[in-house]
């Protein structure tokens, strides 16, 4: 089968998203069923994504896999696609449109399990720094819901600083250094994935480390394995979900849709002070990987490509 497939993504220049795109390409190439990928990959807003989706529809693709900029803003284009029998799969975050399949990381759960681990690590009481993502972003909102749920369950935990990093390394580092400078003590840090620079900041400023929750980014995972005195946990948030989305889209085109329209990929938590977690960390560690790339480059059960294939980042017909 020679399908053409459209990809739409609205954040460029971010390691997670780059991995997602490479996973999509690798999965499409590995499946052998995709003739060409038509990728719209740029920095834009929901309206820009609507434009890209319509252009992909106009280009006549068989399926579209998108990482939605917003859960509800894209419904009109998704419905237009459905009217033309184009399969639509949203990855990473859900969309409201009925016509679409969703293969998503469970962001609320992401926020919840990391926070829960941290609060329990602190023995249920203490002061934490809460370093969120970007204000106004849907994923941040979902994670915040999870974080707040965990907070309710631990009434003696106190958030001393709450700040938006904008998912930017430099901003996060500057903020944590400011917090350290104020001299107001805190016992733990929850981050929304801007993690390795936080550890760096502690080390550079000679401040004693506190437990830190981050994502499974290569840089942070390596720190979890190697930095003396660092207690921390990585919550998985695989960028390779993009590959899963492509796999699901192909299944649907082949007439084997998944049972549920919504497939939630549950995050795992790898704490470096548990044996199981440490084993996961050691296994996943890959010092050659771009530090911004999540180490979980495959999603068993969905993706079929190899590590080499995703790193080569070649789509169908490319070499």
């Amino acid at each position, binding site marked *: 089968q020679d399908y053409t497939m459209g990809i739409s993504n609205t954040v460029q220049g971010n390691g997670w998203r780059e991995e997602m795109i490479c996973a999509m390409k690798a999965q499409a190439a590995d499946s052998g069923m995709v003739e060409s*990928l038509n990728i719209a990959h740029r920095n834009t*807003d929901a309206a820009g994504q609507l434009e890209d989706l319509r252009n992909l529809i106009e280009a006549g693709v068989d399926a579209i896999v998108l990482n939605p900029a917003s*859960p509800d803003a894209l419904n009109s284009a998704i419905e237009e696609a459905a009217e033309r029998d184009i399969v639509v799969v949203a990855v990473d975050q859900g969309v409201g449109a009925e016509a679409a399949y969703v293969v998503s990381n469970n962001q609320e759960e992401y926020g919840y399990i990391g926070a829960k681990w941290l609060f329990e690590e602190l023995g249920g009481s203490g002061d934490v720094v809460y370093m969120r993502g970007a204000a106004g972003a849907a994923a941040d909102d979902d994670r915040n819901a999870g974080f707040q749920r965990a907070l309710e369950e631990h009434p003696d935990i106190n958030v001393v600083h709450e700040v938006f990093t904008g998912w930017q390394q430099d901003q996060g580092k500057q903020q944590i250094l400011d917090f350290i400078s104020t001299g107001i003590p805190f016992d733990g840090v929850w981050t929304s994935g801007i993690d390795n620079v936080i550890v760096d900041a502690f080390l550079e400023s000679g401040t004693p480390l506190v437990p830190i929750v981050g994502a499974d980014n290569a840089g942070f995972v390596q720190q979890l394995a190697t930095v003396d005195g660092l207690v921390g946990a990585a919550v998985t948030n695989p960028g390779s979900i993009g590959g899963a989305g492509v796999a699901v889209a192909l299944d649907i085109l082949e007439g084997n849709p998944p049972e549920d329209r919504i497939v939630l990929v549950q995050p795992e938590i790898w704490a470096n002070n548990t044996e199981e977690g440490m084993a996961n960390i050691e296994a996943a560690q890959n010092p050659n990987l771009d530090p911004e790339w999540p180490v979980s480059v495959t999603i068993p059960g969905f993706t079929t490509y190899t590590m080499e294939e995703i790193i080569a980042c070649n789509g169908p017909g490319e070499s």
Partner: protein
Amino acid sequence: MIRVLRNQAWVLGLVGLLFALALVTKAIQPTYSASGFESLARAALPFAFATAGMAVAILVGGIDLSVASMMAVASVTAAVLMEGAGVGTSIGVVFLVLGIGLAMGAINGALIVVTKVPDIVVTLAMLYVWEGVALLILNAPGGQVAPWLQQLIRGSVLPWVPNALILAVVGVAIVWVPIRRSKLGLAIYAVGSDPLAAYRSGVNIAGTRIAAYAICGLFSAMGGLTLAMSTGIGEPIPGPYLLAAVAAAVLGGVVLGGGIGGLVGPLLAVLILRLVRQDLTLASVDPNVTTIVEGTIMVGVVMLGGILALRSRRS
């Protein structure tokens, strides 16, 4: 006649370019149809208004960096107030939002006049202020725009004459044509060209600048509304409209520094930029290369224009 050609040479060049791009599109996608054009027009809508607003601010000799933030305020206000509202209410909300846009722009202008701080600094500060306001109204994407409004920008009255295009042209024209013809329009150009001479010619400089920024705010509100109309919701984070608007205004022949240009050129430039985007997707160009191509086209067109202008001046 020759003078008209001379003055409009840039706009005519843009028309030619648009035409050439249309041919390219047809070549890439032989099945390109009215629906492709319709989605092009819809995509161009918020850019068109943002660019029109920016163009007016540049014409009066300033620049408005807060355009995208004002659009965000307009879009969240509309989405929040319209959620679950009836047709009557939503019509009211539309006018309210336009009024808010006018007010935001007027505040920008008044601050520039009163504080004597350069335009770019004031509007840079207001970029943050209006973004903050938008976030305070809605801290995550949400709300709901009245369905009839969402419907308004879809479809076409005639094939190849999409509603969105009509809305853009009518929206800009309804505001700008009467102003351009009035003393205010002249005053805007005069202040942009030479504020001292304008003052000595009896122009109310402060009033003119405030008015121009208010118009910019009004266009931004229209842009924000169309943004909400196309997505159906309100988004507090400003989209990528600021630099795009400056680029389209300048591509469209509006001279930074003020006094020279119009709104037709910038609107054509918006269509051209959107069509380039569409062509790149239709041609399935590698996404990394698309960025390069977009940049090259932007630079290339202006370079070509610049070189041609230099040539013609020499001969």
